């Protein structure tokens, strides 16, 4: 089927993008000033010890060699040693990535579903108080940084009206033997439903805080594209042919109008990872964004490259996913790419 050809083509292009990304990450990580070996060992270490570590880290070799050496081990799943935690970076990532992934996925779902829903609602009630109200909310949502929402939600739902947990991934004492590392998924897989519910409830506030910007943006895009499209010839024609308002609105108007919103989602996933840092810090969420920023401050090259690599990889996967979604909705994308 044409959708398969589309997916294959799209995936191949992503591989090219990944190679490009790896080169950029590697170059950036090697041109930052400062000696990583010295940083790791501290100012009091002897010159010999620093030199030994430099050799161990292959920092004395030519840069091209360093790149291929790095790529080869990355492909084996080995990002080297973290100078910050003195553990294997891969082990660190196994702990932190699932937490962030869980957060970002839930946030993406919330912003996509509710963003489009609010946009549709605003269009359906165009010109009424509901519409104005939703539009004001959307303005506020777009211009307010997500950490403000995080603090606000925390105060509101954690302290003023304590109905939702505000710290960590689960309540104290609850947990599950990891499979994927995503607690909600793991506890469902292990049929431990109380833990699943507990972990999900813990996700709600940070994920919603993270989703607010994108949700507001999607609501605005959906509303404006629906209103734009509603004066198109084909909608007028469908009205003139006597199709019901409901059929026109929910079928013939909605589908072409969500395309721009879904396309924007691909870009927003990058912003989700970026904003996750502050949200994770506020909600004490042991995630990758926080780990990445700490590693950067520590000049922990291996960890930083690993984090960027992983985030880049996830971003590319998410983009493929969004593109497939767009291709399913929009036959023009699906069929033209297959030619």
């Amino acid at each position, binding site marked *: 089927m044409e959708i398969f050809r589309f997916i294959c083509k799209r995936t191949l292009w992503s591989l090219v993008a990944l190679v490009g990304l790896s080169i950029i990450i590697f170059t950036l990580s090697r041109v930052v000033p400062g000696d990583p070996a010295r940083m790791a060992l501290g100012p009091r270490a002897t010159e010999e010890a620093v030199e030994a570590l430099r050799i161990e880290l292959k920092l004395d070799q030519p840069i091209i060699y360093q790149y291929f050496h790095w790529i080869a081990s990355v492909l084996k799943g080995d990002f080297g040693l973290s100078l910050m935690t003195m553990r294997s970076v891969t082990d660190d990532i196994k702990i932190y990535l699932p937490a962030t992934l869980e957060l970002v996925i839930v946030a993406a779902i919330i912003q996509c579903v509710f963003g489009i829903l609010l946009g549709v609602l605003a269009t359906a009630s165009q010109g009424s108080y509901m519409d104005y109200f939703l539009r004001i909310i959307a303005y506020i949502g777009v211009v307010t940084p997500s950490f403000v929402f995080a603090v606000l939600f925390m105060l509101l739902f954690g302290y003023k009206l304590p109905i939702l947990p505000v710290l960590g991934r689960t309540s104290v004492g609850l947990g599950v033997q990891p499979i994927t590392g995503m607690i909600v998924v793991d506890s469902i897989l292990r049929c431990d439903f109380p833990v699943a519910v507990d972990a999900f409830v813990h996700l709600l506030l940070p994920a919603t805080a993270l989703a607010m910007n994108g949700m507001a943006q999607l609501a605005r895009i959906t509303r404006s594209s629906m209103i734009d499209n509603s*004066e*198109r*010839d*084909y*909608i*007028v*024609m*469908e*009205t*003139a*042919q*006597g*199709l*019901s308002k409901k*059929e026109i609105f929910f*079928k*013939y108007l909605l*589908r*072409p109008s969500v*395309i721009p919103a879904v396309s924007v989602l691909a870009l927003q996933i990058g912003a989700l990872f970026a904003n996750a840092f502050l949200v994770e810090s506020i909600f004490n969420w042991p995630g990758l964004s926080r780990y990445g920023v700490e590693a950067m401050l520590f000049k922990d090259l291996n960890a930083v490259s690993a984090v960027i690599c992983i985030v880049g990889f996830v971003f590319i996967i998410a983009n493929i996913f969004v593109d497939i979604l767009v291709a399913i*909705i*929009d*036959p*023009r994308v699906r*069929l*033209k790419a297959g030619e």
Partner: protein
Amino acid sequence: MSSEVLLEVKDLNVYYRVYEGLMHVLDDVSFSLVEGERLGLVGETGCGKTTTFRALLRVLDSNASSKGDILYKGCNVNKMSQTELLNTRRTEMSMIFQDPTSSLNPVFTVGEQISSVIRANLQAKGINYSENDIKDIALKALSDVLLPDPERIFDSYPFQLSGGMRQRICIAMSVATERKLLLADEPGTSLDVTIQAQILGLLNNLVKTTGMSVILATHSLGVVRETTDRVCIMYGGEIVEIGPTRSLFANPSHPYTRALLACVPKLTGEGIAEGIPGEMVSYLNPPKGCRFQPRCSFCNEDCNRTKPKLTLYEDDHYVACHKADL
């Protein structure tokens, strides 16, 4: 031909609210149509043909307002309830849109779109149907408009088809189920001459076999001359002359109609057509008197001050001009 009046339009006015002010496009448009009649609507671009059609179906843009009576079978379209309106659109009137490239929904197959139209029609008539019946009707309509390989076209998306094919799909959509009145807005513009002739033949056939009435908006005087019973000449949102096709072509009496006819390059080869000097009226502040007066070489004080009314010129042939008996 029966002579039951099907449609009577009385003093139809349409305004568009735009940034610069209020555009008064249709100005006291009045005409009527009997069952089985074919009426041509002719005028240069921007004269309000599409606006007239959209007003008849109450599908004007949101910045438009429409005043006046549109009596369809005695019911005023402008005062109909939503259900009556829906029924009228589903079973009585239908419109072929002018621009085939933008009149089909880009993300649905042709089949889905035409089926929706047929389904709505059958529902309104209270006929029981299966999805197969609908597909059969759709395929028949597609082959009626001379589309090759209707099965393939049924499953295609609009962007996979040529402009001419899309135009014929728009036509098929409007004639797939029987209607009493067809509003055809330039149904031949993106078709080549042979196909255009065949499509017009098809419409003619429908008129003969089903007793359907047609209003045909077009720039082409040749088409009008061959396929209509009466012609309505429009200038700047007003009807300036209306009458039986034969009498109007034989005896054009409004200066605009004459100029229009003079524009058609003569087959005898008297060189290039002259065109009509001057610009189209400004709808934002139209002249108080005759709208054609600024471009008219016969005008006098009267034309400047008062608007000429449609008056009987000869048998069933009306003209709106102070100097018509020139």
